[in-house]
């Protein structure tokens, strides 16, 4: 069993967060999320019919284990994000928020300036803010200073399945961060998720790789055990990778003479 961890006032057993997009139907999405044992599931406000109590997406996420993490996908500015967040809070009865501001609709890359602005305001408004950002260590510190509950740097462009292309920056973020680090976007295979956990990330968020697999339920389970394996390895202290063989006669031996 891996150590539980905390974001805001919530304790999580599972370090695998999931999403709700791109599935071929909502029943399949529910099964996959169940198999993943995920406790935090992000859902795009724009996909939910908040005026409908029986919205099909939300209906399939009503499970005691699952906490909803509404996201602001679709907004282009801080102002729009704050407005969307308030609507999400009211409609979905949660002050948790995945802050996503990506004015670039092609690669959905997050806007650091607008994200920082919105995060500051949302924290003041009482939100538990989890911002989706590029793997920028300085931005992570700035977000931490304005009071976000965690940071969500990307491993590669969202939906790209390319793995941890930003690994050097992620390592700095993990080393320096005082808030949990959740690696979001780009994780395309369970091995990528395991690697993220071995590096010491607190959690990962996986959507596309599960949703578009031939068998999403089995893939969700594969991610679950990969995340657990990676975390266990991290907690058990991985051996250091050695770049050179140990010289049989130490270079500094002469100092002892």
């Amino acid at each position, binding site marked *: 069993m891996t150590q539980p961890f905390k974001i805001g006032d919530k304790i999580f057993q599972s370090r695998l967060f999931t999403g709700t997009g791109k599935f071929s139907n909502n029943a399949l999405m529910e099964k996959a999320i169940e198999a993943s044992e995920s406790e935090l599931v992000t859902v795009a406000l724009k996909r939910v019919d908040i005026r409908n109590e029986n919205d099909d997406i939300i209906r399939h996420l009503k499970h005691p284990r699952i906490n909803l993490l509404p996201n602001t996908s679709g907004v282009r500015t801080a102002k729009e994000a704050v*407005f969307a967040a308030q*609507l999400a809070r009211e409609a979905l009865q949660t002050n948790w928020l995945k802050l996503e501001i990506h004015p670039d609709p*092609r690669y959905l890359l997050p806007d650091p300036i607008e994200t920082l602005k919105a995060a500051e305001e949302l924290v003041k408004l009482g939100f538990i803010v989890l911002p989706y950002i590029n793997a920028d260590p300085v931005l992570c510190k700035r977000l931490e200073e304005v009071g976000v509950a965690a940071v969500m740097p990307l491993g590669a462009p969202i939906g790209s399945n390319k793995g941890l292309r930003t690994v050097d920056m992620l390592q700095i973020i993990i080393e320096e961060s005082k808030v949990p680090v959740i690696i979001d976007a780009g994780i395309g295979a369970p091995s990528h998720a395991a690697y993220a956990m071995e590096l010491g990330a607190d959690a990962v968020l996986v959507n596309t790789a599960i949703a578009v697999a031939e068998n999403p339920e089995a893939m969700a389970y594969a991610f679950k055990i990969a995340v657990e394996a990676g975390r266990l390895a991290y907690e058990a202290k991985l051996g250091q990778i050695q770049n050179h063989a140990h010289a049989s006669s130490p270079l500094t031996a002469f100092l002892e003479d």
Partner: protein
Amino acid sequence: MSFNSIIEKYNWDLVKESIYSKTTADVEKALMAEHRSLEDFKALISPAAEPFLEKMAKESRALTLKRFGNTVQMFAPLYLSNECQNICTYCGFSLHNKILRTTLTDAQIIQECEAVKALGFDHILLVTGEANKTVGVDYLLNAIRVVRPYFSNISLEVQPLEQEEYELLINEGLYAVLVYQETYHKEEYRTHHTKGKKSNYDYRVDTPDRLGKAGVHKIGLGVLIGLEDWRTDSFFNALHLNYLEKNYWQTRYSVSFPRLRPAEGLLEPKVVMSDKQLVQLICAYRLFNENVELSISTRENATFRNNIFKMGITSMSAGSKTNPGGYAVFPEKESLEQFAIDDTRSPKEVADMIKQQGYESVWKDWDKVFNL
């Protein structure tokens, strides 16, 4: 700068020749490339790529799944008016066509909205002809205000407007504008648009620039397939797309593939595009651009639509009426329509078909809150 200054540097005949002289080796290179260029796109739409259709389809499907998932966005057109001062050789609304002309009143728009909403739609495309006195920007502003309570996402397919006019409409909640160039062949364009404001090629070709400057969320591009050589026209459309993406990077783009369909007493297509060639074109767009939305309408038949959405298409209309008032106000008056639709199934039947094939039909993917 605008797209006109880019396209002026190209010579239609040379581009055409370069597409038709692409070889098997060029196609293979394009298929292998990680990032595909406009030259690769030319190879993929060329006759030399025809033997590679299955391979292109598989790759197109994989890329689309990765980016858009197992989903198809559903939308419906709502025709507000068929009044038109233009003469276009291919269009049922053309000025001299003796059809019943009508422009919907507020009460009629509401009646239509309720009917379309009852079919399940939440994304709506408002369509008109070009009659600036009766269906000018004031009419459109009012129409958006009337329609807005019913739909989360509003698109427009109407006459080209000024940047400031688009800004007004965007402020009222407009999300996307579709403006098809019809053909990028300047001389050919003039022969098909002999009278009315639409005869101004330069103004039309720069419309997406004005839209980009106005900050619209989405711009829809396309050529009317059948007017000119579809390969050459599609190259210019892809060039346009590339240019717009670089210049208006906050806007998303879609491409549609209208093939000329029979309309009231009008022109036969100059160039006929086969189903196979349409598949080739759709897949070529996806291979060229992983993120662009690709749309297919009810102009195409049911069998074609049942298969094509798995190879790159991301949005589909269903149960469409192409005459103003067609859903509820004048359900019988088919003579008003712009063109005949082929897939006449109801939205529910189309959604069931999509579901059977393991895809989800998405009805809502936007929220009014984002249009502030």
